[in-house]
C-alpha cells in the first residue's frame, strides 16, 4: 500500500515537473536572484570573519564563498543559454554565427569546470588560488560573451533580410508591368538598399571578429554596434516600405 502511494506521488511529481518546464530567460532570472542572495550573505560573513577571525567564522565565510562561486557560474551558464537559444531560434547558416554558437558552448564548458573546481575548495588558500586562476583564464570567454550579444542581434537582422528576400521573390512575378517608371525606379532602389544592407552586415561581422573587447572597453563596443544595428534596421524599414508600395499600387 505504502509502495503504491509512493509511486503514485512520484508520478505526480514527475508530471508536474514536466509541466513546469522553464524558459532560459526565466531560469536566468531565478539564478541571478539566487546569486545576488548568496553574494550578499558572503559579504556579511566575510566582514564578520575579518572583524572576529575565529575558525568558525572562517568556515562560515569559506562555505558562503563556495556557494557564491557556484551560484555565480551557474548564472553565467544560464545567461549564455539565453543568448544561445536566441541565436538558434534564427536558424543561422552563416559560418561566423555558427562559430559564435560553438564558442558559447565552450564558454559554458569553462564555467561548468569552474563549478567542479569550486566544489573542491577546502581552505582559504584553495579559495585564493582558485580565484587567481579564474581571473587569469576567464577573459577570453568573457570577450566571447560580449561579442556574442552583437552577433545575436546580427543573426536576427540576417533572418529578417532573408524574409525580405523571400517577400521580394514572391512579389516580383506578380508585378504586371515592370517597365513603368515608378516600378523600375523602385526595383532599382531595392537592389541598391539590399546591397547596402548586405555590406553593412558583412562589415559589422568583420568589426565584431576583429574587436579586442575587454570588460573595460565593452561600453564603447556596445554603443558602436548599437549604432550599426540601428542603421541596418533603418535600411530594412526603407526597403520594406518600397515593397509595400509596389504591392499596393502595381500588383493586380
Amino acid at each position, binding site marked *: 500500500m505504502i509502495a503504491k502511494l509512493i509511486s503514485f506521488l512520484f508520478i505526480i511529481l514527475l508530471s508536474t515537473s514536466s509541466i513546469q518546464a522553464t524558459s532560459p530567460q526565466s531560469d536566468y532570472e531565478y539564478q541571478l536572484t539566487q546569486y545576488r542572495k548568496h553574494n550578499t550573505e558572503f559579504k556579511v560573513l566575510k566582514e564578520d570573519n575579518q572583524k572576529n577571525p575565529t575558525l568558525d567564522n572562517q568556515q562560515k565565510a569559506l562555505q558562503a564563498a563556495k556557494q557564491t562561486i557556484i551560484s555565480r557560474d551557474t548564472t553565467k551558464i544560464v545567461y549564455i543559454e539565453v543568448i544561445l537559444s536566441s541565436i538558434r531560434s534564427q536558424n543561422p547558416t552563416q559560418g561566423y554565427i555558427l562559430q559564435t554558437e560553438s564558442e558559447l558552448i565552450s564558454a559554458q564548458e569553462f564555467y561548468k569546470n569552474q563549478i567542479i573546481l569550486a566544489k573542491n575548495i577546502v581552505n582559504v588558500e584553495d*579559495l585564493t588560488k582558485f*580565484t587567481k586562476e579564474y581571473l587569469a583564464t576567464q577573459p577570453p570567454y568573457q570577450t566571447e560573451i560580449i561579442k556574442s550579444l552583437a552577433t545575436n*542581434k546580427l543573426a536576427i537582422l540576417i533572418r529578417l533580410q532573408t524574409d525580405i528576400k523571400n517577400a521580394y521573390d514572391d512579389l516580383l512575378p506578380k508585378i504586371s508591368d515592370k517597365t513603368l517608371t515608378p516600378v523600375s525606379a523602385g526595383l532599382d532602389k531595392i537592389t541598391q538598399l539590399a546591397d547596402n544592407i548586405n555590406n553593412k552586415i558583412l562589415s559589422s561581422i568583420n568589426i565584431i571578429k576583429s574587436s579586442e573587447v575587454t570588460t573595460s572597453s565593452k561600453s564603447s563596443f*556596445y554603443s558602436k554596434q548599437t549604432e550599426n544595428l*540601428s542603421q541596418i534596421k533603418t535600411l530594412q524599414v526603407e526597403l520594406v*516600405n518600397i515593397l509595400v508600395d509596389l504591392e499596393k499600387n502595381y500588383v493586380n
Partner: protein
Amino acid sequence: MSIKINLISLKGSLLGRLRQKGQTLKKYLPIIITVLVLVIGLAIGKRIAFLSNQSINIPKPADLPTTITLPIDSSLTPLKQSIGQFNPQLPDPLMPEFNDSITLED
C-alpha cells in the same frame, strides 16, 4: 337545560371544525407560500426581461466612439512589424556585474 347543553355542544363542534380547518391550512401553508413566491418571482422576472429588452433598443448617440478594426492592408505588414519590433540596443539581455574576485582577504 337541554337547549343550554345543545348550544354548548354546537359551540364545541364549531370550534372543533375551525380548529380542523386551521390544521388543514397549516398543512398546506408551505405549498401556498411556495406557489406565491414562484408567481411573484415570475412576475418580477418578466418585468426585468421587459425592461432589459427595452434598453437594447435604445439608439446609440451619434458621437459615441466606435471601435474600428483596421484591415491588414498588405501581406508584408507582419514583416514590417517584425523589423519595427527589432531592438538594436546592446547589451541585451543586460549583463550584471559579477563578483569575480571572491577571496577571504581584502
